């Protein structure tokens, strides 16, 4: 026995200052294990370190100085999709998203990335997504690639496979050449609403943004499209670049302060991030109240149109699967409204699939950073969908949309809910 007769019970405390802000969140985990079966990576591996309880446990041990940053710890933490399925079922109130954001920032600060990694990070986070004009430029280049025959050539020549880009290339959407550029324009004079156009949504998937704009109009909103808005910062936050995420957040807060009414989002991932601005700025005296005000106004498209859309009289009979976006279902706890909206469409029969709440593997840039797990989850989701033989799959997030389109190919079409409402 090595029992200490003098009894030394130590209080739980963080010794790692960079993890202090989320330490209470870590302590809230009482390790009951309820989260395990909700976690996509745990379900794939049955490995404790690949589950939420293990990830919180490692983060806490890191915060308390009981663990060091080791490659296995980094790997398992970064394998988290941040889908928040665990947060949604946690009876003790642990919230995985802010915990991962904080942890990844700390890991990024302590890591020694290679030159190539630093170059990629700089390109994506410091250059591409910091100014939407640059993103437009790149998406325009993709548009040219798709339309000029270069894509045909790249795919046929096997070049993509040789340079290891075949997987990423397959997820590329058919880019819309006509981008949506917010310029403070307004539509109608109904109840005020401010439209958050997004980055991927307003460029590569601009037609969905235009459909959303029309749906808002039909639901009786007088929308405005505030200029100088930009990327929500979710990609940065989940990749350990909280500082740039906050810089982007500030720009959005300022851009929308001139508008009125709900801030309407058609991308679940952006919506969850915009609603989290309040949390990320909670200790910032200058920005906390402005961020809280902003977050309080954020609404998903389905939330604001569910009770306002005029009923449709006709529709074609079809069987539809609504695939919950994790950042809508788990992070924002929104599942009823999109289903109600769809059920009201004449002829539309809504069917549920097995493991409906399990992530499809898209998760922001996860399909690029973790292609193996992403593909496994994609296959699992595709199998669940095909098992009910639907005519259409509907979702409410660009990532899920592209992931499901890539997975389903031409077997079942996939649409954003705004497109379905705009038909």
């Amino acid at each position, binding site marked *: 026995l090595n029992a200490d007769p003098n*009894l030394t019970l130590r209080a*739980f405390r963080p010794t790692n200052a960079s993890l202090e802000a989320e330490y209470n969140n870590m302590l809230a985990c009482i390790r009951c294990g309820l989260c395990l079966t909700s976690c996509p990576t745990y379900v794939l591996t049955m490995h404790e370190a690949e589950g939420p309880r293990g990830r919180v446990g490692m983060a806490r041990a890191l915060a308390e100085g009981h663990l060091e940053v080791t490659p296995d710890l980094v790997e398992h933490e970064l394998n988290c999709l941040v889908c928040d399925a665990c947060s949604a079922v946690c*009876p*003790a109130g642990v919230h995985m998203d802010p915990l991962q954001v904080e942890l990844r920032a700390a890991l990024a600060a302590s890591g020694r990335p290679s030159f190539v990694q630093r170059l990629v990070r700089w390109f994506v986070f410091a250059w591409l997504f910091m100014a939407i004009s640059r993103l437009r430029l790149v998406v325009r280049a993709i548009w040219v690639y798709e339309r000029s025959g270069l894509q045909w050539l790249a795919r046929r020549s096997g070049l993509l496979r040789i340079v290891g880009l075949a997987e990423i290339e397959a997820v590329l959407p058919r880019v819309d050449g006509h981008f949506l550029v917010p310029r403070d324009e307004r539509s109608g004079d109904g109840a005020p609403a401010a439209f958050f156009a997004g980055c991927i949504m307003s460029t590569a998937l601009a037609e969905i943004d235009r459909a959303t704009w029309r749906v808002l109009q039909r639901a009786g909103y007088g929308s405005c499209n505030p200029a100088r808005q930009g990327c929500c910062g979710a990609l940065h936050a989940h990749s350990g670049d909280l500082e740039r995420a906050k810089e982007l957040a500030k720009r959005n807060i300022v851009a929308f302060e001139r508008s009125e009414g709900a801030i309407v989002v058609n991308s679940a991932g952006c919506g969850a991030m915009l609603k989290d601005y309040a949390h990320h700025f909670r200790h910032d005296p200058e920005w906390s109240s402005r961020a809280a005000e902003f977050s309080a106004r954020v609404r998903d498209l389905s939330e604001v149109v569910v009770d306002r859309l005029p009923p449709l009289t006709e529709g074609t009979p079809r069987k539809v699967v609504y695939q919950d976006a994790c950042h809508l279902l788990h992070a924002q706890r929104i599942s009823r409204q999109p289903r109600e909206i769809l059920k009201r469409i004449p002829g539309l029969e809504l069917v549920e699939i097995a493991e409906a709440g399990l992530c499809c593997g898209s998760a922001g840039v996860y399909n690029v950073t973790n292609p193996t797990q992403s593909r496994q989850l994609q296959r699992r989701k595709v199998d669940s969908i095909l098992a009910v033989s639907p005519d259409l799959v509907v979702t409410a997030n660009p990532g899920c949309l592209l992931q499901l389109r890539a997975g389903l190919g031409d077997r079942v079409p996939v649409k954003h809910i705004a497109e379905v409402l705009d038909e």
Partner: protein
Amino acid sequence: VSAIAFDLRALVDDSQVIDAPGELHTYAYDASFLTQLAPRAPDAVVIARSTDDVSAVMRYANERRIPVTPRGAASGQAAGSVALEGGIVLAMNAMNRILEIDAPNMQAFCEPGVVHAQLNEKLAPHGLIFPPDPGSSRMATVGGMASTNAHGMRAVKYGPTSAWVLGLEVVLPDGQVIETGSVGSRAKQSSAGLELTKLIVGSEGTLGVVTRLRLKLMAIPPARAIVLGLFDVLERAGEAVQAVFGAGVSPSAIEILDERCIRAINLYRPAMQLPSVEALILFEVDGNPPGVKWDAERIVSVISGLAVRAEWSDEPARINALWEARSLVGAAVGTLRPGSNRAYCGEDICVPVSRIPETLRAIQDISAKHSIPIATYGHIGGGGLHPGHLIDGRSASEIERVLRVADEIHQLALRMGGTTTGEHGVGAARAAYMPAEHGPALDVMRRLKRALDPNGIMNPGVIFDVPNLPFELPLNAPVGEPATAAIDPG
């Protein structure tokens, strides 16, 4: 790379062996507060995929005298699946196949890692159910349930897990594989020899490793109803339970929630809107529809003189909402005091049904004495009580006080003529109470243990021995004022 992990890689696939520091840490604890205070990472973890894997690991460990701790979901609250002496953790959660559902014989064959709720989901289309139902149904594995002889809410009518296990495949500490309950049998009963199944069930991984279970099933009762009784005086709640038993009704569950639990549920599920009273009791009755209605009405009439309100419902939505709230209250009580969390210790006593009100009052006194808020709920029909202590882990004083609270609650249970664990198991957390609880019978248990595990490699520190901890339990310092002076303020 540890030497143990190196050897294990020769026995099973590389991918099944875990020995990286971060990964090992995630196997250093279960839900017990004890393992938050004293987490202990094993030297290696093996994710078992087959009986052969388990057998090979056991043979190796037995030859080398390396401790082996079997582990399911680690949702246990008694430090029963943590390698307190180091060695190997055998993770059984990936052996999670339901091998066969034999509907005509009402039996299921499955591996130990199957999660309880998922088993019942798979049985439902056959009209069958595995009745033991722990509140942790959505996390607990059937292997863990068997190893702790888990009871759950409906044990008052259907009995514990042991009543529903017909046979087991067990890997003994020397690697030999045996089948209990008659080899290849599908009989529902047997008088052939010693009941080894019952010896293994509840042995918490100290005698062998369960690798397959033959479970007894029953038809899903066609009807269920729930009676909600609200009591402004605790003692009347106790009387009500005795009155119901006396009236010839056999409820399938009788659950009590105290005032703090009611508040926790209202915080976690605001739509429930439960009224604030000293005690709330949920009676569940099941069976055929006319019988269920008769039972429910009978309970309402029997308790209405004692309760401030009594009503029944057979609305499935209402029943499910109440049960969901009940099953999650254990973890949800943490929301009662911002900055505090539930500490699982002294959380599972069982006392004679007649002494429940007295015990609940005594728990409130212990709570007041140490200034540790306690929300208590439990299976009042069987006498099981789960006190939920709330502490701020950033306070060394509160950590010390909650350990004293746990000790006093365990002593209380024994004084009341009860037990320190009604259904969660002894683990390391309650091993110190076993001499007082069993007297000379503990020595008989130890002799059985030695007969099966002569080298003492199976889950050491659990049930039979005092566990290897950095501090001694129960705390020996004098109990009284919060003894902050004795504590390293950290």
